[in-house]
C-alpha cells in the first residue's frame, strides 16, 4: 500500500491512504448490517404493539422522514466530507476555532466502547441459545432456565464469580469479531456483511413464512396492525416512534460517520442512505410480522388473548417467551435455530460496526493499523467485557449500562452534534452543499431545519423526560448506590474517556487535510 509523506505535529511521518469499501453495494450492505440489529427483531414489534398498533406506523413513518433520514444524511455528510473517524471528522469540521470539537467524536467513540462490551454478551447468549434450540435445553420453565440456570443471576452488584456457560461463548464472539475487524474494511467488515446480511434475510424470511402458517398467527397480526387512533394524541407514543427510529438507524454515535468516511470522495451519499433507511424499516416490518404471528400462536396455545401475554419485547421476548413458544411448536428446534441464528447474525454485524468506530478512531489518532487496533484495543475491551458480563451479575449490569448508554449517552451526543454543527459552527450550508455536490438525491433548506430545529427539540424532550424518570423513580428497583455506579458512572466514564483521549497527542496531524469540493466551489454551485 502506498504511503505519503507530510509534516505532522511530531515531525515528518508516513500516513496510509484511507481504506475503502470495494464499491457501493459493499457499503450499502454493511450500513444495513449495522442498522439491522437486535432492536429490529426484539424491540420494534413490541413497541409498535404497545403504542397504538397500526396507528403507531403514522408517527413511525413521520419520524423516519423528519428525523431518521435527515440525521443519517448529517452523519454521512460529516464522515464523507471530513474523511475520518468521528474524532477526526469533528476536529476537521471545527477547523482552527474548534479543535476541541474532537471531544464530541471521542464522546461517541466511548459510547461505542460501552455498548460493545455488553452487546457482545447478548450475541454470546444468542449463540448459546442457537445450540440449545436443537435439544430444547431450556425445558418447561424458560424464565427459570435463563435467569437461574444459564446466567446464574445474583443480586445487583459486581460479582467475581464467573459463569463458564457465558464466558466461553463470549470469548469466542470476541475472537471472531476481532479477527474480522483486524482484516480491515473491505476484506473484513464488508466481507462479513456480504455473507451474513443475505443469510439473515433468508433465515428470517423462512421463519416468518413458517410463523404465518401457525394456528393463531392471524390473531397476532390483527393485534399488531389494528390501529388505536386515540394513541396518536398521546405525546409518549410520538416519543416512542422517534426513539425507535433514532436507536434503530445507528445514528449519532459515530457509526455512520465512520462508515461513510471509507467511501470514495466522489461517491453518491444521499441515495444509498435512502436505501439503508428504508431497508432498516422494511426489516422491522418483517420482524413485526414474524414476532406477532408467533405470539399469536402462543396466545392460541395458552387459550388467552395476545394482550394478556407478558415478555413481548427485549431480552424477555427473546430468551424467555420465544423459547417457551419453540418448545410447544411442531418443528420447534428448527424454528428456534432460525430465530437465534438470526439474532446472532443481526447482532454480530451491528457489533462489528460499533467496534469499527473504536478501531477507526484509534487508528487515526495513534497511526496504527486495523490489525494493531484489533489486537491492542479490541483485546482490552474483550477483557473488560468478560470481567463485567460473564459473571453472575452480568444480566443486571448489562440492563443498567444499556439504559444509560442509550437513553442518556446517545441522546446527549445527538443533541450536541446537531446544535454544534448547525448552530454553533454553522456548517449546515456547507454540509448540504457537499451532499448536493456529490449525490443524485438533493437536499433543500428543509433538511437544515429538520436537523437543526426539529431533531434537537424532540431529542431534548426525550432526554429531559428520561432523566426525570431515572432520578425520581430509579430503574427496575435496583439499589440507588448501584444505579449511581453502573448507570450514572457509565456516563461519567464516557465523559472522562472523551476528555482524556482528546488531550492525547496525534501521531499524524489531522489538520493536514483539504476538504473537497472546496467551500468556494460549493458557494458557486449554489448560485
Amino acid at each position, binding site marked *: 500500500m502506498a504511503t505519503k509523506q507530510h509534516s505532522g505535529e511530531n515531525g515528518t511521518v508516513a500516513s496510509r*491512504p*484511507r481504506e*475503502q469499501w470495494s464499491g*457501493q453495494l459493499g457499503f450499502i450492505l454493511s450500513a444495513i448490517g449495522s442498522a439491522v440489529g437486535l432492536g429490529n427483531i426484539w424491540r420494534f414489534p413490541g413497541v409498535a404493539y404497545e403504542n397504538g*398498533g*397500526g*396507528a403507531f*406506523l403514522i408517527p413511525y*413513518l413521520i419520524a423516519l422522514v423528519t428525523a431518521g433520514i435527515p440525521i443519517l444524511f448529517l452523519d454521512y455528510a460529516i464522515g464523507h466530507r471530513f474523511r475520518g473517524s468521528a474524532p477526526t471528522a469533528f476536529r476537521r469540521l471545527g477547523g482552527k476555532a474548534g479543535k476541541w470539537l474532537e471531544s464530541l467524536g471521542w464522546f461517541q467513540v466511548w459510547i461505542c466502547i460501552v455498548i460493545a462490551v455488553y452487546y457482545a454478551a447478548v450475541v454470546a447468549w444468542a449463540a448459546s441459545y442457537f445450540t440449545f434450540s436443537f435439544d430444547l435445553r431450556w425445558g418447561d420453565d424458560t424464565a427459570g432456565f435463563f435467569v437461574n440456570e444459564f446466567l446464574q443471576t445474583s443480586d445487583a452488584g459486581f460479582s467475581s464469580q464467573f459463569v463458564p456457560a457465558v464466558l466461553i461463548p463470549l470469548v469466542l464472539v470476541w475472537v471472531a469479531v476481532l479477527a474480522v475487524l483486524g482484516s480491515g474494511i473491505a476484506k473484513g467488515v464488508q466481507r462479513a456483511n456480504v455473507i451474513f446480511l443475505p443469510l439473515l434475510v433468508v433465515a428470517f424470511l423462512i421463519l416468518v413464512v413458517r410463523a404465518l402458517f401457525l394456528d393463531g398467527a*392471524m390473531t397476532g*397480526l*390483527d393485534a*399488531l*396492525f*389494528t*390501529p388505536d387512533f386515540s394513541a396518536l394524541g398521546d405525546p409518549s407514543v410520538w416519543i416512542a416512534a422517534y426513539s425507535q427510529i433514532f436507536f434503530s438507524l445507528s445514528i449519532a454515535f459515530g457509526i455512520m460517520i465512520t462508515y461513510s468516511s471509507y467511501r*470514495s*470522495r*466522489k*461517491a*453518491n451519499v444521499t*441515495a*444509498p442512505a*435512502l*436505501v439503508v*433507511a*428504508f*431497508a432498516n*424499516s*422494511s426489516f*422491522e*416490518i418483517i420482524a413485526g410480522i414474524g414476532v406477532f404471528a408467533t405470539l399469536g400462536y402462543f396466545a392460541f396455545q395458552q387459550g388467552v388473548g395476545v394482550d394478556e401475554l407478558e415478555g413481548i419485547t427485549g431480552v424477555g421476548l427473546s430468551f424467555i417467551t420465544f423459547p417457551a413458544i419453540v418448545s410447544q411448536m411442531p418443528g420447534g428446534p428448527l424454528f428456534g435455530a432460525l430465530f437465534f441464528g438470526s439474532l446472532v447474525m443481526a447482532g454480530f454485524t451491528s457489533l462489528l460496526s460499533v467496534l469499527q468506530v473504536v478501531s477507526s478512531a484509534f487508528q487515526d489518532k495513534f497511526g496504527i493499523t486495523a490489525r494493531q487496533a484489533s489486537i491492542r484495543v479490541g483485546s482490552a475491551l474483550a477483557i473488560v467485557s468478560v470481567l463485567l458480563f460473564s459473571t453472575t451479575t452480568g444480566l443486571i449490569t448489562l440492563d443498567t449500562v444499556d439504559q444509560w448508554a442509550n437513553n442518556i449517552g446517545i441522546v446527549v451526543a445527538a443533541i450536541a452534534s446537531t446544535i454544534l454543527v448547525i448552530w454553533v459552527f454553522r456548517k449546515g450550508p456547507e454540509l448540504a452543499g457537499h451532499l448536493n*455536490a*456529490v*449525490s*443524485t*438525491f438533493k437536499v433543500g433548506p428543509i433538511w437544515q431545519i429538520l436537523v437543526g430545529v426539529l431533531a434537537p427539540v424532540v431529542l431534548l424532550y426525550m432526554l429531559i423526560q428520561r432523566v426525570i424518570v431515572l432520578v425520581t423513580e430509579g430503574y427496575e428497583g435496583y439499589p440507588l448506590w448501584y444505579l449511581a455506579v453502573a448507570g450514572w458512572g457509565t456516563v461519567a466514564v464516557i465523559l472522562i474517556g472523551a476528555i482524556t483521549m482528546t488531550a492525547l497527542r496525534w501521531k499524524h496531524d489531522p489538520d493536514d487535510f483539504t476538504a*473537497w*469540493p*472546496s467551500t468556494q*466551489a*460549493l458557494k*458557486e*454551485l449554489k448560485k
Partner: protein
Amino acid sequence: MSGIAITFFLVAAVLVWGGLIASIIFLARKPQLDVYPEGSELVSDDD
C-alpha cells in the same frame, strides 16, 4: 385479520417496502453524477 388491520398492514407495506424499492430503483438509475464540481480531476477515487 380484521379489515382495518389488513388496511394498515397494506399501508405499511406500500410505504416502507415501496420506499425501499423506489430508493433502489432511483439509485440504480442514477448511481452517480455525470459532472462533479471544480477540482474533481485532482481528487482520485481512492483518495
